[in-house]
């Protein structure tokens, strides 16, 4: 079309009619699209992106519009393009289009072994101009853990699915192919981070001299499944996790989840399509906690196994990669069958800005929620929400009462501890309005565990939220009786809305861009994650 020269045009017969046909074809199609986009029901919440979509700015607020008209028009535009009908379907289609652009002829080319977690530290530190201190750090941890780790790891090289690895959006890494695709999150931290977490645990140990305090740091799946060729895409987590261990005061017990999971990495300890670990990962973490705490723990034969089929978790939305959607997995979870337990919830209602506006009265509800096949939020099986604290009374005799302060990784842990403790209390680090000291005293807590994934363990913001609980007085207006009724009535819907809000409030999987140019650059503390940002 460019530079078309139309001189001496011979007559083209039928041109007019053909043009009319073209206009009709495209025009009708365009008219249909217009009707859909303008008049159909607008999407308000994106299941795929797990977020509420933009809202139409207030058109009646003339003052505000006058003040900054450009902002207003921009908001209208972005509202229109954010809330289009069938948004998720269109986005899925867009991912399919992007997927079709892929040149997929590498399939049989090479098989790259997944790097064993231990060598991870070496590979990355050798291959890069990592700062000297970091190299020193990692070597330290390397040697310290050599003894216990090497034994598990010699035969690990053969658990190869496929050597493919590529970077997805928002700092994700996609590995494997076909139904074995696994989406991983990149970790940007170094051994130096996590000062806030260490400080929190040490403080808790001081504040509660009569209770046992446990540090539980959950690694990301990346640590176990990242192929060697993609090693640069994420920093090793082991130096970080063990540097936390080494900085804890002797009064804090370190629960070595890292090592426990390593032993079981051939099992489905992590979900392939979700940013969380699976029920089994939580189970092994709980096992290690029980061991460390010296309480009984039952094998999986004391549990019923349940499956939510066709589960595609959050990593689909984060990675925006269609191959994740095409690789649904079974979401498996286990419920104890030889112990009685009774869960009592207090839930929080949040406003749009993720501020707590109301606390419900305690109500009884199932600890494990049953989700239908194909539910993308199936990880909420455990507890059902983060915006709550739960007290579970078990039929296990004894006097041990556990309090778990956790992020969403921690949700998968307590359900495995009903054989071990007489009471299990679960508090989310973001949503708890009472004074922690009062709570511990009132409930006679004997064991306190802080279970964070590496992102939250890295961020001093997350730790300081918990620290605040030691001094806060609690500022939520108590609910009236009439509220209680409606709250009870709504409790299912609360859980539902809570479930919707879940991921967005917390872990966007990666808060740092994968540092593509210089993966081993020492990262300043705080950079790997700022999960609070979205809340504040």
């Amino acid at each position, binding site marked *: 079309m460019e530079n078309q020269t139309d001189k001496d045009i011979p007559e083209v017969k039928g041109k007019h009619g053909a043009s009319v046909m073209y206009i009709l074809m495209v025009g009708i199609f365009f008219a249909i*699209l217009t009707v859909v986009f*303008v008049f159909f029901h607008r999407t308000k919440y994106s299941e795929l992106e797990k977020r509420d979509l933009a809202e139409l700015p207030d058109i009646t607020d003339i003052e505000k519009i006058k003040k900054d008209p450009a902002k207003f028009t921009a908001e209208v535009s972005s509202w229109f393009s954010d809330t289009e009908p069938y948004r998720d379907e269109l986005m899925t289609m867009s991912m399919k289009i992007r997927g079709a652009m892929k*040149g997929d002829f590498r399939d049989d080319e090479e098989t790259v072994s997944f790097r064993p977690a231990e060598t991870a530290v070496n590979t990355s530190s050798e291959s890069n101009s990592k700062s000297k201190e970091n190299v020193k750090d990692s070597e330290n941890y390397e040697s310290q853990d050599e003894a216990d780790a090497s034994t598990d790891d010699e035969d690990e090289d053969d658990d190869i699915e496929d050597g493919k690895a590529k970077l997805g959006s928002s700092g994700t890494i996609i590995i494997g192919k076909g139904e074995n695709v696994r989406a991983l999150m990149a970790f940007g931290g170094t051994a130096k981070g996590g000062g806030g977490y260490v400080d929190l645990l040490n403080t808790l140990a001081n504040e509660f001299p009569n209770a046992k305090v446990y540090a539980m740091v959950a690694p990301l799946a990346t640590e176990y499944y990242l192929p060697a060729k993609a090693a640069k895409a994420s920093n090793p987590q082991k130096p970080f996790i063990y540097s936390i261990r080494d900085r804890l005061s002797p009064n804090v017990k370190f629960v070595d989840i890292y090592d426990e999971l390593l032993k079981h990495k051939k099992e489905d300890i992590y979900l392939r399509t979700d940013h969380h670990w699976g029920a089994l990962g939580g189970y092994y973490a709980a096992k290690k906690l029980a061991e460390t705490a010296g309480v009984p723990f039952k094998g999986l034969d004391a549990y019923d196994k349940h499956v939510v089929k066709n589960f595609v978790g959050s990593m689909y939305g984060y990675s925006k990669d269609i191959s994740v959607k095409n690789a649904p997995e079974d979401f498996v979870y286990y419920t104890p069958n030889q112990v009685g337990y009774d869960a009592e919830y207090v839930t929080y209602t949040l406003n749009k800005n993720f501020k707590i506006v109301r606390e419900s009265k305690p109500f009884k509800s199932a600890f494990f929620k049953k989700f239908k096949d194909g539910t993308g939020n199936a990880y909420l099986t455990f507890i059902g929400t983060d915006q709550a604290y739960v007290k579970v009374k078990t039929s296990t005799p004894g006097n041990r009462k556990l309090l778990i302060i956790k992020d969403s990784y921690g949700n998968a842990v307590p359900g495995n501890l009903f054989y071990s403790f007489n009471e299990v209390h679960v508090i989310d680090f973001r949503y708890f309005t009472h004074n922690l000291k009062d709570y511990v005293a009132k409930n006679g807590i004997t064991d306190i565990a802080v279970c964070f994934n590496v992102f939250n363990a890295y961020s001093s913001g997350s730790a300081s939220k918990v620290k605040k609980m030691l001094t806060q007085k609690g500022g939520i207006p108590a609910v009236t009786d009439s509220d209680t009724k409606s709250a009870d009535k709504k409790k299912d819907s609360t859980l539902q809305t809570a479930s919707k809000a879940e991921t967005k409030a917390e872990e966007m999987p990666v808060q740092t861009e994968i540092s593509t140019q210089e993966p081993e650059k020492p990262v300043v503390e705080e950079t790997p994650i700022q999960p609070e940002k979205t809340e504040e």
Partner: protein
Amino acid sequence: MVFSDLFFIFCFIPLFGLLYVITGWFDKTRIRYAQNREKTLKRPMLFRNIILTIFSILFYAWGEPIYVFLMLAVVLVNYFCGLLLYKKHNAIGKTWLIIGVAADLAALGSFKYLGFFSGIARSAGLDIPDPQIALPIGISFYIFQSISYLVDVYREDSKPQRNYFDLLLYISMFPQLIAGPIVRYGTVAKEIGNRHATADDVADGVYRFIIGLGKKVIIANIMGEIATSLLGGDLNNMSAAAAWVGIIAFSIQIYFDFSGYSDMAIGIGRCVGFHFPENFNHPYTTTSMTDFWRRWHMSLGSFFRDYVYIPMGGNRRHQALNIMTVWFLTGMWHGASWNFIIWGLYFGLIIMIEKYTLLRWRVPKIGLYVYSIFLIIIGWGIFYFDDFGRMSQFFTAFFGQNEPQGLPMHVETILIDNLWLWAAAIILCLPVRKQVEKIGYKMAVHIPYAGSYAVQFCHAIISITILICSVALLVGATNNAFIYTRF
């Protein structure tokens, strides 16, 4: 507002189209009525022009609710100057021309370059505050159109516009308002007063618009993402592969972005009966830098040729000075930043050198081609980085001065994940589509009726496919602005 915004496509366009058709009926009724009384209408396009002007103002005000008044004022000044200088071959005419052009340049200077110059003054030690003026969208384009109007009227290439609103329509016409092509007044003067869009025009216009949309959304946006991911982060010790792939992605992005915009502008223009000039002619098939600028942003090149280079003496007097002036201005036009000035002078220098060397020697075409593309890509490197520290980090990597790192995984991912897009983009830089259209045209000529229908049927299928893909890709698109709207 942006052409590739869903709001524009599904709210603005349908509403505008509907009202334009309705007012078209009014106009036609008026014309028939006048014909019955054996009169000719002075303003046969009246209602359609009103709608077009209103929507143009709305279009601009949507993005620049304040600066729309600046545009209205600029048009007013040019309106009066144009009337006052016409057919005055004396000092008075010249004075009005100078006043008008000076006013245009003053508007451009104060809104686009004041911050830049005050920054220079500050670095020279003067205590001048930063004026903090945001750049009004499209000001570079409409100021240049205003200047062309005054000069053309002064040279009597065109008559002055006696109706303020018609001049306003010329300057503000939304298809070409914010990113060109720079339409000369003479090109559209007649069409403002009276124009006709046949079914062929509309079909071609719609097709052209959709092609442009596809260029922008399917190719430019994704290439832009790639360029940003490789060039937007930390450049320290980046790999040569990342530098090359990144800047090639940007080269592809800027071509498809800008030529896509031009296609959309020309397409909308065609639908309402205007014939805007072409702005691109496959610039990446060039065999010299001189030739590149006859193919890239042609309306800007010809503007500088006709209003600066030739009046300064062209190739008859101090050609070197003329060339460097034009290229200094070309660089400067792109933005108030040193890297654009350097970029312009870089082209000026190469064009001057090649005039006396390569273009006089017998160099095989392929050699010329490689030479041109290589230098153009380096040019985009200068163009991309307005921070000299980053620019030098980039070129260090580009010329392989960093430790060799082979093909890092993120670069490999980018290449393989978008393999077909890379292939399509590179092929579409060549005149493939032109050839295909030629075949279609021949077919339509030789096979009466069926040929035309087959061609238009293919066009319709292509259009609908592009529309579907573009709309899907626009959902969730975050960074969608056209590069050239910021110049």
